[in-house]
């Protein structure tokens, strides 16, 4: 049999691309960002029964299928004019909390930790999860794997299937849980809370106790004063599953708070000639270009934005961590992009605590799990917080519930403009006349990208099984000066 060498194609759609053009003097003239996008989903969904959407939409993304399943199921509640039973809502939120524990765990240890634990200047060969475990110990590595595994068991048990849940129905869920399952979920929740606390301690030891890192987090290069978006409950506390979308300005003042049905009154999308990406912005503030500040409609929808947009966390230990973060960062809102990693860990602890609360809820094992819809379907909107940003599903159907129109704003899309701005600013600050362009320097530019964890065509899992990223720098004559590729052999 032939032995082959993997040589992934470097197509435009195939990977994330940051391209930097320099002036004659070596300073940055222009920065461009390309993120691949999948095409034709809206058309693909037309003509299909709306009740299939929770199954279909979760295939859009290989990283957060649970988020699409949940936003879609909520859109169906709205579409069929039916409210879920109280137990069904709690089961959905329980599964969703477990999903958050797994997703935030993966992001922190795989993506964020290598830059800090192994170091931003370490060679790429060491700057990965293996390097992290080599430094912090096998025990923690085992805890990462175990936390994910146990919470995947919850997703499978509650959702009916691993990874791709099939339990969401208009008006409720398809399956109740029994006492034995509940007891096991409670045990897993307890150990997840411990794991959440442990992860915050790792952040404390590795990042906060290292002055150079803390200075980097607080530096102007990684600061961006944009609006913050996040779902909040009736007390304005962070909620991933339900509530209203609240937008708070860089000055900490609330701009608006909207229900899912009102999203089009608040969000518009900007199109630029140099990319097929769309840039959502706040309609009421308006598009003023790729600039931050109170007069620019650019907003962020990230873990840090969610904490900035809320008045606090609904669980005690996460609230404690929330207070500590803002007192360390000098108050609210915090506009430090790298603090997104910290916010993500606070959300991890919140998700685990919420999971524990729900597992102890007396209603959670009730069999009253569905209200059967009786009204004619017409239009529905569902919003949840996906780990990578506010996720909106909007369907319009005929009276038989067949999809006529479908519009989705996915988590990453919200962040296209701020992501671009963060990278541009880092590039301009790090690449200066006379400064040698090293791999560590380019990695620092990438560090402006990582907190957002953009979902580049993440439904695509063609080998080599990772999503490549490339940074290329051109001089004033258009000659390639330096290229840093990750995941491109």
């Amino acid at each position, binding site marked *: 049999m032939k*032995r*082959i060498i*993997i040589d992934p194609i470097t197509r435009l759609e195939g990977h*994330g691309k940051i391209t930097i053009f320099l002036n004659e003097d070596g300073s940055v003239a222009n920065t461009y960002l390309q993120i691949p996008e999948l095409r034709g989903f809206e058309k693909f969904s037309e003509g299909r029964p709306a009740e299939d959407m929770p199954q279909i939409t979760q295939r859009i993304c290989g990283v957060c299928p649970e988020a699409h399943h949940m936003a879609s199921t909520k859109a169906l509640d709205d579409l069929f004019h039916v409210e879920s039973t109280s137990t069904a809502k709690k089961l959905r939120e329980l599964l969703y909390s477990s999903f958050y524990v797994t997703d935030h765990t993966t992001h922190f240890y795989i993506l964020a930790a290598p830059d800090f634990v192994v170091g931003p200047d370490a060679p790429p060969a060491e700057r990965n*999860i293996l390097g992290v475990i080599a430094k912090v110990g096998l025990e923690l590595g085992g805890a990462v794997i175990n936390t994910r595994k146990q919470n995947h068991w919850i997703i499978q048990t509650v959702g009916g299937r691993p990874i791709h849940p099939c339990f969401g129905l208009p008006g409720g869920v398809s399956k109740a849980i029994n006492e034995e399952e509940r007891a096991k979920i409670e045990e897993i929740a307890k150990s997840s809370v411990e794991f959440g606390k442990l992860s915050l301690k790792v952040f404390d030891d590795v990042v906060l106790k290292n002055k150079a890192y803390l200075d980097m987090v607080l530096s102007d290069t990684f600061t961006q004063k944009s609006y913050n978006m996040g779902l909040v409950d009736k007390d304005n506390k962070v909620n991933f599953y339900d509530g209203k979308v609240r937008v708070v300005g860089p000055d900490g003042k609330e701009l608006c708070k909207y229900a899912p049905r009102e999203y089009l009154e608040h969000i518009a999308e900007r199109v630029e000639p140099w990319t097929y990406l769309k840039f959502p912005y706040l309609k009421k503030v308006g598009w003023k270009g790729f600039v931050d500040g109170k007069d620019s409609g650019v907003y962020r929808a990230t873990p840090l934005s969610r904490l900035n947009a809320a008045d606090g966390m609904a669980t005690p230990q996460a609230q404690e961590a929330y207070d500590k973060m803002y007192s360390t960062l000098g108050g609210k809102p915090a506009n430090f992009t790298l603090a997104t990693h910290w916010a993500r860990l606070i959300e991890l602890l919140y998700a685990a605590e919420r999971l524990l609360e729900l597992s102890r809820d007396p209603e959670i094992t009730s069999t009253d799990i569905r209200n059967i819809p009786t009204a004619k379907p017409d239009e529905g909107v569902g919003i949840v917080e996906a780990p990578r940003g506010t996720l909106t599903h909007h369907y319009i159907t005929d009276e038989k519930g067949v999809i006529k129109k479908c519009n989705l704003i996915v988590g990453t899309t919200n962040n296209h403009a701020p992501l671009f701005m963060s990278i541009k600013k880092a590039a301009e600050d790090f690449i200066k006349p006379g400064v040698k362009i090293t791999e560590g320097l380019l990695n620092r530019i990438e560090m402006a990208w990582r907190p957002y964890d953009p979902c580049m065509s993440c439904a695509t*899992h063609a080998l080599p*099984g*990772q999503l490549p990223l490339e940074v290329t720098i051109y001089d004033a004559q258009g000659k390639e000066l330096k290229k840093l590729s990750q*995941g491109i052999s």
Partner: protein
Amino acid sequence: MKTLVLGLGNPILSDDGVGIRVAQEVGEKLKDPQITVAETSEAGLSLLDSIVGNDKVIIIDAIQTEKGQAGQIYRMGAEDFSLTKHLSSPHQINLATALELGKMLNLAMPQEITVFAVEAKDITNFSEKCTPEVEQVIPEVVKMVLKELNE
């Protein structure tokens, strides 16, 4: 011997779903309780979660190479991924790193991992169908996987 046949990819993204199509067809032809057939659209750590505890694993996935022809079939061992294993990734970890991590943490890793990959043409447009070039080689890949299972 506990064996896992794992189809990787996205069943609604044209050729990206070829691995899942093959796994489904293989599943229909098998009755051995020692063999599990599964599918997933997740990569990296989730891949590790899926394969732990099996003795033998066969993975079927789509691939895009620089000079490949759509429909071309490759059979590889996990060692063929060593080229990329130490590169960090913007989103997840690749198969080789996941395997190394499993070993490092002393998890019950399979002794044997074989990967069948089919050269894809379209992995950016949503469709439940593969392109004709890929569609026509599915029976052959199914045959290869079944043969591998009998060895």
